[in-house]
């Protein structure tokens, strides 16, 4: 195409979007790093300085880090365990003409308001929900809301579709002749699954886990509604530091730390995928 060579047109097309990304995402993230070495101003906000105090101070929010770093991997694992059979059903067992419909039904609730979906569990787990039903059969004083259980349940519920999709994609791409070959060579159904299907679908599991884990690192709504004051995450600490106690430099240090953890996770993921070169394409979103 003749147009391909006109750089000015390309710049005009991409320019406005690029300005949004630069001014509202890239530059502010650089500023966050600078702030993280600063000091808190008298009325909150930021005064320039160069100190590592904010990073050394992170231990004072240690509980939020501990909660997040324990619950997020656990939630991701549970999510993967629940999602795998579902993805397998959709990719292998579901009738072909229903498949599109079934997939739409999976993704639509994920896109619906997360706030309301988690709020629904507050209704279900709250005192007038399941606990009042348990009372009818004689189990009194069961507390479900504001527990780790409630937060884990919310995490699985909130991110299940995001886990199902990548696993579905990797299972759907799987060459069915490999399964026949495995059966022809005398492997049983379980052995075929363990030695052929599962290893070939691992990139999908890895992609799903990466997406879910990264989003859980910044989770706010689930611990805020289902964890009460008891189970709080780094995301809740960030909201507090930036909006309530207005200690921006400390908040910036916390933000830099979680972004560092996310980047490290992505690095591990890339390494895992590079080790499986031929499957790299399909696992990428």
């Amino acid at each position: 195409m003749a147009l391909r060579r006109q750089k000015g047109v390309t710049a005009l097309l991409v320019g406005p979007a690029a300005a949004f990304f630069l001014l509202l995402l890239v530059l502010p993230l650089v500023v966050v790093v600078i702030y993280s070495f600063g000091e808190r101003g008298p009325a909150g906000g930021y005064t320039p300085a160069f100190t590592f105090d904010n990073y050394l101070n992170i231990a004072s929010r240690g509980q939020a880090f501990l909660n997040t770093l324990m619950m997020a991997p656990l939630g991701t694992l549970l999510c993967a365990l629940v999602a795998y059979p579902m993805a397998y059903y959709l990719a292998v067992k579901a009738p072909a003409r229903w498949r599109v419909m079934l997939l739409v039904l999976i993704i639509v609730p994920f896109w619906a308001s997360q706030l309301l979906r988690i709020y629904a569990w507050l209704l279900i787990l709250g005192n007038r929900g399941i606990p009042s039903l348990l009372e009818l059969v004689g189990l009194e004083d069961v507390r479900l809301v504001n527990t780790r259980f409630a937060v884990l349940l919310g995490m699985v519920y909130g991110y299940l579709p995001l886990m199902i999709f990548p696993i579905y994609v990797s299972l759907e791409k799987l060459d069915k002749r490999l399964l026949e070959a495995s059966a022809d060579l005398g492997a049983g159904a379980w052995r075929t699954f363990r030695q052929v299907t599962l290893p070939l679908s691992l990139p999908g599991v890895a992609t799903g886990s990466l997406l879910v884990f990264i989003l859980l690192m910044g989770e706010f709504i689930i611990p805020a509604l289902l964890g009460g004051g008891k189970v709080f995450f780094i995301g809740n600490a960030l909201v507090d530091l930036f909006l309530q106690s207005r200690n921006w430099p400390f908040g910036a240090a916390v933000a830099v730390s979680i972004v560092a953890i996310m980047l490290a996770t992505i690095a591990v993921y890339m390494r895992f995928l590079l080790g499986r070169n031929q499957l790299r394409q399909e696992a990428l979103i």
Partner: protein
Amino acid sequence: MRWYAAAIYVFLYLPIALIVIFSFNAGKYAMDWQGFSVEWYFKAFANPFALKALRTSLVVGLWTAVLATSLGTLAALGLERMSGWPRRASDGLIYIAIMVPGVVIGIATLIAFVTAFNLANPFLEGLFGDAAPRLAMGLPTVIGAHVLFNLAVVILIVRSRLAGLDRSLIEASEDLYATPLGTFRQVVLPMLAPAILASFLLSFTFSFEDFIIAFFVSGPDSTLPIYIFSSIRRGITPEVNAIGSVVLAVSLTLLIMAQFLLRDRTGSRGARGDQA
């Protein structure tokens, strides 16, 4: 296996259905069924705070959808013409914007706006004296932050449609002496239309539903999700369920429409774009 799948669908939809069911509860408590009634819908629509928040959310959602869809479509067309490191860098940025949690986007945009306002306000004061307009958080900042995260979604959707375009149609148009703009208007644009419309619906929905980003940059202008969140904090009432049901009805309708636009004729390719 089939039973497991059925159980998953129940797990996904039952909680949403409960909100809607209990919005019709006559009683005062959210989960204590006292008979059917629509009075909480009347109460919700007579509540000035809820109505103001609803209007804010609609305005923010419409502006976000218009800006994100138009700028995102242009960017997708531009990216198609790029190659080498600028292309790779842009792709990286788009994925970062999609993958980063809302809290981080909230912080980044909060800092960007506050820094800009701190620089601009003394300057404006110097220019206009006491009558100077003071820049502060409000509707425009929410719209800006929402456009940022929806741009990435729009770019991915439009681009996956662009990648599936039949090149021979474009070549045919050029062979028939159409100008580049003519080819775009008469061949490319009509083929992109479903993706553009789907992008519009999706970015409106995502903006309409967003809580965490708006929480950071809305200032005094509460959006509907912020109003719902603070109501939940004050106590669960059927009124919250009624407002929630309205939000769910709007967003589920738009989401399903967008899904069908994306699926239309593209078959399995739509499925990949969805993961955005």
